[in-house]
């Protein structure tokens, strides 16, 4: 399962990277979003998959899945959401002010 997940994560990374490198701001946001998912899955996979019961006590289980990556991920998901929201609004406002969503046209001046 870990091998399968590693390959999936790699593919998601590739897709996300390709999207980030494109010109349209929309695709860039989608790319970061997909890379965010890939990172979540990666961290979870690194902790080992399905090694025991869900990490909730009182279930008469012998072993639990590693809770630490889950705790990290919980933070990651929320932060990811915060940054996505910010970048979305930023791009919306940039488009409103500057009238383009093409990253090449958004380039600054030479001496910036």
């Amino acid at each position, binding site marked *: 399962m870990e091998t399968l997940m590693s390959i999936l994560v790699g593919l*998601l990374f590739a*897709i996300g990277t390709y999207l980030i490198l494109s010109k349209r701001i929309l*695709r860039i946001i989608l790319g970061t979003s997909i890379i965010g998912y890939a990172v979540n899955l990666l961290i979870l996979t690194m902790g080992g998959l399905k*090694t025991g019961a869900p990490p909730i006590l009182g279930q008469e289980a012998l072993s639990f899945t590693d809770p630490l990556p889950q705790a990290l991920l919980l933070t990651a998901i929320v932060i990811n959401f915060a940054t996505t929201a910010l970048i979305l609004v*930023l791009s*919306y406002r940039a488009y409103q002010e500057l009238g383009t969503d093409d990253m090449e046209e958004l380039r600054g001046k030479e001496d910036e």
Partner: protein
Amino acid sequence: MSWLHILIFTPFIVALVVPLLYKQFVHRIHTGWFALGVPILIFLYLLSYIPAISQGNTLIFTLAWIPSLDINLVFYVDGLSVTFGLIITGIGALVTLYSIFYLSKEHEALNNFYVYLLLFMGSMLGLVFSDNIFVLYAFWELTTIASFLLIAFWFEREKSRYGALKSLVITILGGLSMLAGFIMLAMVTDTHSIRAMVASADLITAHYLFIPAMALILLGAFTKSAQFPFSIWLPDAMEAPTPISAYLHSATMVKAGIYLVARLTPIFGGTWEWFWIISVTGLITLLYGSYNAVRQTDLKALLAYSTISQLGLIMSLLGMGSVAIYYGTGNEGALYALASFAAIFHTVNHAVFKCCLFMVVGIIDHETGTRDVRRLGGLMQLMPVSFTLMAVGSFSMAGLPPLNGFLSKEMFFEAAVNAAQMSIFSMESIGVLFPIVAWLASVFTFIYCLILVIKTFCGRYKSENFDRPVREASVGMLIAPLVLAGLVILMFFFPNTLSQYLLHPAWVAIQPALAQAGELNVNIAFWHGFTPALGITIAVIALGIILYVYLPKWSKIYNYYPRAYTLNNIYDQLLKRLENGSRWLTNAYMTGSVRHYLIYVFSFTIIIIGASLWLFDGVAFDFSRDAPVTVYEVVLTVAILLAALTVLFSNSRLVSLVANCTVGFLVSLFFVLFRAPDLALTQLVVETISTVLFLLCFYHLPKLKKEFAGVKFELTNALVALGVGATVTIMALSVQSTRLFPSISSYFENSYELIGAKNIVNAILVDFRGFDTMLEILVLFMAGLGVYALIKLRLSGGKENEEIK
């Protein structure tokens, strides 16, 4: 902390107070009066060491600074450091006194001036007393910075800034290479103390790092002491106020290189490399400086070149003296060691007469408004005191009796004649050039000394050349040069007293081996009989007078040298090329395109992760610990991939948005399968909110079009993307296959006992890592503020807005 430490820190402390005093007494009391006490105090204190050092004692004061790195403020008191310390503070006091009358308290930024001056004085003192090479280096660079600030004191003038920058560039270049040399020395000897290095000098000369270390350190000394071809910063540094030029270029900054070479002579001396590099550089500098000084029309520029030339003279003496270490004890060693003595003697003499000359030139500039010898002339009746001072200083520099310059100049000729008779280091064949160069350079020295005196003070007074009535300077301004001129004469009549108390102990520091054998003896006499040295002096005077008289006839030779090949031009071109080159390099990759920057980031990620995996044998594939794969998971994997690919290829805003959210929801299903219920819940909530947000914003963003930006563009992106994907996969697999240490999570499984929580993940978040969560909430809050501000932000009417349009 010893008194010496406190006194060396005094200039720095007073430098902090000076601006406050300036503010308090602005325009009422000249700030210089507050600074004047510092050098006088230190000078008097250093005098108290003279009884000790004249008996051959040395003192060490240690103050811990960074003991773990063996970098401590170890101050070493011996003849050499006290001699330089007395020059620095003695001349420093006179320069401060002079500056009080030179700089107007109404118009100049005196607070800056004295802060820089004290900073410089303190760092010079630290430099000459430091025994630890890294402390020495720190003070060395401090003097560079302070001198930069001093030279650029009138920073509103373009030439001042140019000169200051030039001195900074050149001396920092030398300073850094010197640091590298010091590090090599520390590696070889395993100590940071110069005294300890002197003790293990044999170890250094036998080591393969000997040549590189020596070359790097000498680069530092030569740039600081304005040796050819690094001398070009010195004439441009004349843009500084004259008191600064007097201080920096007679007594202190340029003497730092001399000090370093003298101090390190016991380590490197006695080798042919050290002898040749220093003597030849010194002699070339001597000739170059004096030859060029003759054609200068600005009095300060003339003095600048004469300083270069005199520094070359001292440097060459140090080179010739180092041979004594090769011979060791014995008559020959003692004979050549005299050159080292002459070097110290001339260092002191030069400080005294050159400072006097600078001050007189400053007075002329101050009273007449010009320093151009073509406009000056006939000032003798108007400024008799200045004339006398100028004559004393100049003729001392020219090496005439009864002035101190005569004595050290004679010793220089004697050393050059002795060097010509050396039978080692291939001196048999070309050694004869030494006295010839010395003679030739001294002829030019004699000529420019005559120019200084005659062209300025003799001849016809042309009042139309001056925009104000010329008169003698105020008494206050004359005190300092008068003291110096008095010293010039006193030192001629009592050289042996000076030698006994100061010069001899300094000599001992340069030639410790001979000193221990008791073979360092010198008796300075006015009359040696008809020696070759006297012959050279007479020849200098004879040819000098002839050439001075016919100066207009032969001075045309200065016009033959092409301008394009002057050192200044080469420096300017080099700097320009360097600037253009770095601009080109920077512009080549700082394109302003986010895509390019991201490509760099991704490429570095690939390279760093890939390279470290490969270099440290991290790549490993071990599938034995894999959890079993079920049908659900395969279906989910395929579904996620399909959704992601849809995002990639879709040309519709809505489709790609929905596909993106699909990925998110499917990921939350994965969380369910992987026994992470909290994650699944959070992901579901966040995904729902994000979808709404996406929809809101997408509505306002332009539609996606099918577009193809060119094969190269797409191919690069694809390559980078595949590279990142492959790297991540390989990394993930390798991490899975190599578990270096067991998970620490078992600790958290006691959460019920520890904090009474059954949900371990929640327990980690709100308790074990409670601060993380709190800061995470802060991030969320900040993002919320950012979103709010962005929506409310209106860039209308402002100046920025117009620039954007």
